[in-house]
């Protein structure tokens, strides 16, 4: 065995240095997002309206990003919405918890002016389309938490597809 004090002479220059870093943080969702999250625990979507442009944000971060003012009016939104655009995921990746292929879509809830991303189930992947009307399926009441995990997924709600004009502004 090589003596530790002389080992360096044999192994050549250091070319790589791994310096693992780990930090812990608390997260503060803020006043507006806390309301959104608490509403999820009751199985409802709550957004906030801008007093200037009247747009409804869900989830709201507490301000209107267009007007720079506080969004103070709370708006309870529908359980249904429209698929504005989508992606069928066929590629496996680390940490994947859903069986591929699956559908990931932007959903514009009725009464909201921003869409958000959701999982679509109960429809074959080759039938997903823009304008599809969907509804949220929630976990059992006992499992509801102030988290997006309270939404199991969205599924077709049986209504006629929304006309393109109704969501073209949100693409």
């Amino acid at each position, binding site marked *: 065995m090589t003596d530790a004090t002389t080992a360096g002479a044999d192994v050549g220059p250091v070319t790589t*240095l791994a*310096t693992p*870093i780990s*930090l*812990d*943080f*608390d*997260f*503060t*969702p*803020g*006043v*507006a*997002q806390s309301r959104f999250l608490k509403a999820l625990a009751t199985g409802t979507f709550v957004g906030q309206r801008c007093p200037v442009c009247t747009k409804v944000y869900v989830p709201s*971060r*507490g*301000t*209107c*990003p*267009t*007007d*720079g*003012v*506080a969004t103070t009016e709370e708006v309870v939104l529908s359980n249904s919405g429209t698929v504005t655009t989508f992606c069928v995921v066929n590629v496996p990746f680390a940490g994947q918890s859903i069986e591929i292929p699956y559908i990931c879509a932007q959903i514009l809830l009725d009464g909201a002016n921003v869409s958000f991303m959701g999982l679509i189930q109960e429809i074959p992947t080759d039938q997903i389309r823009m304008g599809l009307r969907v509804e949220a399926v929630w976990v059992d009441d006992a499992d509801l938490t102030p988290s997006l995990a309270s939404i199991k997924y969205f599924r077709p709600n049986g209504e006629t597809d929304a006309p393109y004009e109704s969501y073209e502004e949100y693409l």
Partner: protein
Amino acid sequence: MSAPSGTVRPVSVASFAQSPNIRRDDQRNEVEGLLPVIAEVFGNIGITKDDVDFICSGSTDYLIGGPFSFVMALDAVGVWPPRAESHVEMDGAFALYEAWTLLQEGEIDAALVYSFGRSSLGDLNEILTLQLDPYYMAPLWPDIVSLSALQARALIDAGKATEADFAEVASRSRRDALANPKAQVAKDVAVDVLLQDPYVVEPLRRHALPPITDGAAAIVLAAGDKATAWSERPVWISGIDHRIETHALGARDLTSSPSTALAAQHAGVADGKVDIAEIHAPFAHQEIILRQAMGLDASVTINPSGGALAANPMMSAGLIRIGEAASRIAAGQADRAVAHATSGPCLQQNLVCVLEGA
């Protein structure tokens, strides 16, 4: 080289606002904390977001532990219609420098500068370790209090200051902070009482350390007609400069601050009588180093706001120095003031700004 006299475009600090400085804001997110500050900085002078042509912010994602927090922070301003915007991963004072530079080009007349940071979300002492050189220093995780204690020890060993001097700075700062409604730590405690504090890291006792602070601040800069329209007594930036030293702590003389001295020289600190100085010295002993570097004698009132020992919101404490100094000129309490901001470990990078009343 500093610009020859007469070639610098006059830029004024037209408005200043800061949030209350508190230990932990566990209700509001960054945007919600910033929103009233932005509203106040515009409201002070009766303007709106549409009156500024450029926006520059100072913040760091390392405080929130998530990416692109500076982009989300723009929601507090409402950047529509779109306009030029920039960001520095530094204290807002350095964002102000960028805005000042753009104003020098003469194409715009007003800029909003803001900064925000919540130091309470993680272990600040550990987070600040990540500003060190990533190969030789950061993997050892030397915390900022210990590094600052090494600097204080070097200062004592060089015969430039004593522990009682550190306590003098802390006592005066916290006493002056009693008149600052935004201060976090304000109290009147005598030096001999402070010197009975136990050491946190020798030779630094608790009073020589800054508080951990959540806060935000904003300034509107103006030039041309806007500067005179928005202020009865404009506060002009007569000189501003910033300089940096090597990140190799072992290669620096930690008992002096040549980068501050150089910035002060280029900003023109010595070109006239200085009434007050707002110095960004997070640790008490650093004020002594910085005063010496800027050549500020006993006639100068130091940190009437209480300085960073009274409130140290990361990323904003430097910008607040400029705002505090400008506010005192605007209020007629001073004619000429120096504001200083620092960044990095042990005063690595320093900005000096000279402000003058009309």
